[in-house]
């Protein structure tokens, strides 16, 4: 049976004669607006009644007098609690979505996702190692690096996993999807087992710290945390646009990308290091938040096509917006308590992933 949604999109593509760059620009513009709205709503929603009007009023007028002015308490809530949380959400949403898109381009497969194929598990292992062993075995490492120790360890864990995965799954320039997913399962199992050993060794205080790694949460957002992982994510994300053309060529296979003049080895290693850095920093800051990397690029490919020059920036914008949305759900569903955001993204994302598999059945050779 022909893939119906592809056929449906075909009619639209014919109208613009196969050139979807105009539509992509429009979509990106709307995504910018959407993100702005999401940021504003996140800043103003929550247990405190600091409203959109009062926040904007505060920005425009400074400490304006009257009812709309922010009280000192409101200002504390908005600037020291909500703003860092929103910024962290934007950074991590963008990092996860773009990492997913880049991995899918690298593996030439729409099912590759840092969470699914064990990269996040590897990053978690690195982070947990620092939390549990930071005061003892890894003390020189944590003392020397300070707040960077955690994201760096998560980066190394993610990098090691990705490199092993790529070596195992790719032969003669062809990546086998089955091998990739199975190797991902094996590596994730190994990383989770090693993490388990560390958790077994942890004391009570560390156990409390560790709980959120399993679930994923933005609740611990502070300016200090943004200071340590923000630069890593921003650096990794700003390298990604330079990969876009190469990843487009890579869609034709490694050999053909090389024939087109792309330095394939350099492209692959830049992509792997960039993804590991972005995922590592995200995991270090918020634990495992799944499915953003697979849902966001997939939705966007339906709307604007797979051209990475547009897909990567659009993924960053939509990933950031969706994570803020998920965080809003996490904060309000069981208020005044809070759901871990990883649970929200998994509950929405896992069925979506199954839907992708159903659609791709027979189209993608697993």
């Amino acid at each position, binding site marked *: 049976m*022909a893939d119906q949604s*592809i*056929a449906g*999109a*075909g009619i639209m*593509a*014919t*109208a*613009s*004669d*196969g*050139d*979807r760059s105009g539509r992509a620009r429009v979509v990106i513009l709307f995504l910018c607006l959407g993100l702005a709205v999401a940021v504003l709503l996140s800043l103003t929603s929550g247990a405190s009644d600091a409203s959109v009007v009062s926040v904007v009023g505060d920005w425009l007028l400074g400490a304006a007098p009257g009812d709309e002015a922010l009280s000192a308490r409101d200002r504390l809530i908005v600037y020291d609690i909500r703003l860092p949380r929103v910024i962290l959400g934007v950074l991590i949403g963008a990092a996860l979505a773009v990492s997913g898109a880049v991995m899918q381009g690298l593996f*030439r*497969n*729409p099912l590759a996702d840092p969470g699914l194929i064990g990269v996040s598990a590897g990053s978690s292992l690195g982070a947990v190692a620092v939390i549990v062993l930071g005061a003892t075995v890894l003390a020189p490492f944590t003392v020397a690096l300070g707040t960077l120790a955690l994201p760096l360890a998560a980066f190394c864990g993610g990098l090691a996993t990705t490199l092993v995965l790529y070596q195992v799954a790719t032969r003669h*320039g062809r990546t086998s999807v089955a091998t990739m997913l199975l190797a991902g399962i094996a590596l994730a199992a190994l990383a989770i087992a090693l993490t388990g050993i560390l958790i077994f060794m942890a004391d009570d205080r560390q156990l409390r710290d560790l709980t959120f790694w399993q679930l994923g949460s933005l609740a611990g957002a502070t300016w200090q945390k943004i200071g340590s992982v923000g630069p890593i994510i921003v650096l990794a994300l700003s390298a990604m646009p330079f990969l876009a*053309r190469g990843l*487009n*060529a890579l*869609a*034709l*296979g490694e*050999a*053909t990308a*090389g*024939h*087109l*003049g*792309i*330095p*394939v080895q350099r492209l692959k290693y830049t992509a792997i290091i960039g993804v590991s850095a972005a995922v590592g920093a995200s995991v270090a800051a918020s634990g495992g938040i799944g499915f953003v990397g697979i849902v966001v690029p997939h939705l966007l*490919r339906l709307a604007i*096509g*797979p*051209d990475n020059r547009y897909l990567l920036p659009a993924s960053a914008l939509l990933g950031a917006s969706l994570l803020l949305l998920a965080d809003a759900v996490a904060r309000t569903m069981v208020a005044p308590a809070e759901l871990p955001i990883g649970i929200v993204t998994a509950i929405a994302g896992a069925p979506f992933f199954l839907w992708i598999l159903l659609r791709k059945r027979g*189209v*993608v050779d697993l």
Partner: protein
Amino acid sequence: MIEARDVSVAIGGKRIVANVDFDMRPGEIAAIVGPNGSGKTTFLRALSGDLAYSGEVTINGRDLSAMKPVEAATMRAVLPQATTLSFPFTVREIVRLGLLGGRSGALPGEDERLPERALARVDLDGFAGRFYQELSGGEQQRVQLARVLCQVWAPVLDGKPRYLFLDEPLSSLDIKHQLIIMNIAHDFARRGGGVVAILHDLNLTAMYADRIFVMHRGRLAATGSPQDVLSDDLIEKVFDCRLRVGVLPAGNVPFVLPQSAA
């Protein structure tokens, strides 16, 4: 000018190509023929810079092993046997990838229109908006050829000839499109470029090739013009098949040769 001296390729410890010498001049179509598994594709992949080889390969006097991907991409374009995609690219998006290096050699400002023109040349007018994954194998093959043509649109750039490397460009095509593709190759060579093509159809090879390289068990079995190479003895030796050149079928069995094309 492409010169290969004593080229050998081993994959996984097994020697696939052994001591092949290969020369071609711009203006020529060089056909590589031989039975399945004789090392044709492996040799072409070495020539494309995909595989490590021993021996020496120069393109326009430059050592292939010292070339960066970008330099090689300016000198030659490569059509693989088949290309599958995992993402829903449109035909235009695929063909445009040929312009990635920015050295098509078309007149300034013409690049934007090249995908259309290249598609028209491979008889895919109006296919730009279709999805690549929805096309038949033969149509996909022609889309890839259009992409390859965009990459080296001008057969000569900066006074230097450029080359098309085609790995079984006709394998999934009907007879009409086989002739169209071979005419494109012929035209590319006539205008000063060079074409290296792996072919299986000996009649089309005889019709279009200026020079034939016959491969057999990884080695070069014969080389020369079609008249010199295509003999009963060689075909029997290389293809292990007793065929006779230039003999009409008996009785009223119909046969159709590409040479009869109007």
